[in-house]
């Protein structure tokens, strides 16, 4: 009898201790993880996707050339396209693939646009970019595979499973925001779009220097193949796109390879570099001297893109869906508010 009592007490003690430790670790982890929404906002958007109703008929996957250049509100208001941009800084082609896999677990859009700027990178670039892309993903086999495909030599899988291990020394840099945003981050994007309002004309944009080898790496092609295959399997219209941007330089040799690839695989490839049809003016429509578009540029480009999608793939107009209309009405209000706020900030500078 006594024996059982002791045993029971021990089990209870052990359980309570384990719970306390786990709770402590959980709280510490929440506290020490970087709060992207008030810091490097480019890292916050992958996670935000899961909060939007999975009823998108267009999903755009890619890097800053996507999430800073395309305004989903314009696509909605003018073309009835309910679009979400799954963008992250320096997104690599295999990360785009796994984000596509991840997206298809929740919904099957009519069309998917993949930014192919990343075809030029055959290996992981930088840990901070990996973090910004991967941390926001919900756990799934896609995330696990994305981590293993992306890790640089210095990284470890366990650091993704328990980010506390990665950020353990951040206690030295904690701010009030870290406590305030421990459990819920602020919303930073509008359907994955990150608005920029500044203007910095493009000047002296350098030409690309000649390369020894223009062929994309095998790894890049391998993942492009996987993207193509996955879209075919899910009957999703795949569009490869190069966003309008003057720098980094987009070589003709790269363009030619993608044209060939698209033709061979019967998919669409839309190169928007130096495309006069769009109507962009790089003296006024860019905030960083020609690398990315500001909101004015993004709206012009989105109109072009909407038209193109309507004409080329006859994408459906969802403006008769009451729920969506309601959601977008409130998003439009947010968008305008954010825009005027940003312009105000800019004029105050």
């Amino acid at each position, binding site marked *: 009898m006594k024996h059982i009592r002791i045993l029971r007490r021990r089990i209870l*003690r052990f359980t309570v*201790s384990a719970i*306390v*430790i786990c709770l*402590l670790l959980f709280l*510490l982890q929440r506290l020490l993880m970087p709060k992207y929404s008030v810091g490097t906002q480019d890292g916050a958007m992958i996670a935000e996707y899961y909060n939007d109703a999975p009823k998108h008929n267009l999903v755009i996957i890619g890097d800053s050339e996507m999430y800073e250049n395309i305004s989903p509100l314009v696509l909605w208001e003018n073309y009835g396209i309910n679009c979400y941009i799954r963008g992250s800084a320096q997104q690599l082609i295999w990360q785009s693939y796994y984000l596509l896999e991840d997206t298809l677990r929740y919904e099957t859009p009519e069309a998917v646009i993949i930014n192919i700027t990343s075809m030029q990178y055959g290996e992981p670039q930088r*840990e901070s970019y990996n973090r910004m892309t991967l941390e926001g993903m919900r756990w799934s086999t896609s995330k696990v595979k994305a981590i293993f495909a992306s890790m640089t030599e*210095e*990284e*470890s899988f*366990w*650091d993704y499973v328990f980010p*506390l*291990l*990665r950020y*353990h*020394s951040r*206690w*030295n840099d904690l701010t009030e925001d870290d406590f305030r945003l421990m459990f819920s981050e602020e919303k930073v994007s509008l359907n994955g779009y990150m608005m920029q309002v500044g203007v910095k004309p493009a000047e002296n944009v350098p030409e690309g220097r000649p390369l020894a080898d223009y062929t994309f790496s095998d790894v890049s092609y391998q993942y492009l193949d996987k993207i193509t295959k996955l879209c075919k399997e899910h009957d999703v219209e795949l569009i490869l796109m190069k966003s309008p941007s003057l720098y980094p330089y987009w070589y003709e040799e790269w363009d030619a390879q993608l044209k060939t690839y698209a033709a061979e695989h019967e998919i669409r490839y839309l190169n928007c570099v130096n495309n006069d049809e769009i109507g962009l003016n790089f003296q006024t429509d860019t905030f960083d001297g020609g690398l990315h578009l500001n909101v004015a540029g993004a709206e012009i480009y989105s109109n072009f893109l909407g038209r193109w999608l309507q004409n080329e793939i006859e994408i459906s107009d969802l403006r008769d869906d009451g729920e969506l209309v309601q959601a977008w009405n409130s998003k439009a209000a947010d968008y305008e508010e954010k825009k005027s706020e940003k312009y105000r900030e800019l004029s105050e500078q």
Partner: protein
Amino acid sequence: MQFVSYSFLLFLAVVFIIYYLVPGRFQWMVLLVASYVFYLFSGPKYLIYIMVTTFTTWLAARQIDKLKKQQADYLEENKKTLSREDKKSYKSAIKKKQRFMMLAALLFNLGILAVVKYTNFAISNINAVINLAGGQPIEFVSLILPLGISFYTFRALSYLIDVYRNTISAEKNVFKFALFVSFFPQLIQGPISRYSQLESGLFTSHHLNLKRVSFGLQRILWGYMKKMVIADRIVVGLTTMTADTAAYRGAYVLVEVFFYAIQLYADFSGGLDMAIGAGQIFGVTLPENFERPFFSKSIKEYWNRWHMTMGSWFTDYIFYPISVCKPMLNLSKWSRTHLGPVLGRRLTVYLSSFAVWLATGIWHGASWNFVFWGLSNYVVIMISQELEPLYRRFHQKFNVDGSLLYKVFQIVRTFLLMGFLRIYDCFDGVITTWRMVGSLLTTGNWNILWDGSLMQIGLSMTDYIILAAGILLMFIVSMSQRSGSVREKIHAKPYTVRFVIWTALFLAVLLTGAYGIGYDASNFIYNQF
């Protein structure tokens, strides 16, 4: 596989579960397989070395044992017929065979160690001579240095010699012997255990004992704290300074002496804590390697408390055999009659000690730095031994014996002396080391100690605060250790107190440990020995 890695923790957990799931008589096999898997992680190429060493020493020891048995049988059978002389000559014939076996295996394995570890050192010395003569230098060979080769070779040889000396009997099962040589917690940096110390722990069955397991885990955690919080943090500052001998001279050398003493101790003893703790989890008690060495009052005492298993190995297998070998005894006899009792008594001790310290130096690394370091220790110990009577007179005259202040003085003196000797490790070449130590007197830049220069060596204020706290904790634990096991003392406290203490230590290591990206995961200093 490094002790400080996720894979090691995972590995340990898996081995632990399997170990306590299988029936007791299979437990040692689990450890053997685990040890070889562990070794395999460091590169399959290395495996052949440890297997050859294991097999040759095992075989030689078996042969010696068989000869022993053969002798016993023969003497028993022919008890009545043999004369005393016959017996004696038979015994000496057997002894000769045994010695041959022992020496063959010994030289063979030492040969492997010497070739892989010292070939390039030898070549660089030959080249120095060739250079003087203006000849074409020899190319360095690219040899792989198997992980922990010095440690496992010494372990295997101690077994061989013990069998030869008849202090233990040979292990019949080659796989069991293989486990002794390769037991993974002590594979990469010791301790250099003896067969008699491990035999019972390794080969008997163990039930899951919660207290023992948690003590083992606590010991590992403590090791992580020393290694990750202290050693891996301070090493950043240390390498910044030692990498640039032109910029960091004078008073910096004193800082280096302190930093290196702390770093080496925290790194090495922390690694040993992990090894011993891991052993404890499996019910295997490994010998201790450190006994608060920085509290030593003399160099001699220091060497009895620092890297103890190496020191006792050298005493048992080098000092002792040399002291009692025939030529040495003859020399002793001769010197006593020819050189008088004072010098005569000392000569053989000096010679044997010289051999020990030369070996100690070379064991630590294939470079002249280490040779000089070893011999410097020798010189200091011999001098202090000679000055012993003088000290005693001084103590009596001023009546300082036993006074706390004097003890502290002795401890500080020993710490500094050892620190300056140890600094040989930090620089490229013997001459550089001397020059750096000399700059301490000539540079006169003492203001760097307080003018903020020490904030420029890669360590921030936060780093210094963490280091200070870590070192203080290490100091308090050491003080507390003098009156018995700290873990036992904590264990005697109520559960909540224990829980708070260990959780706090765990979180401290987790949050303030210098690990992960941004920190160079520095290898244990002793891995390559």
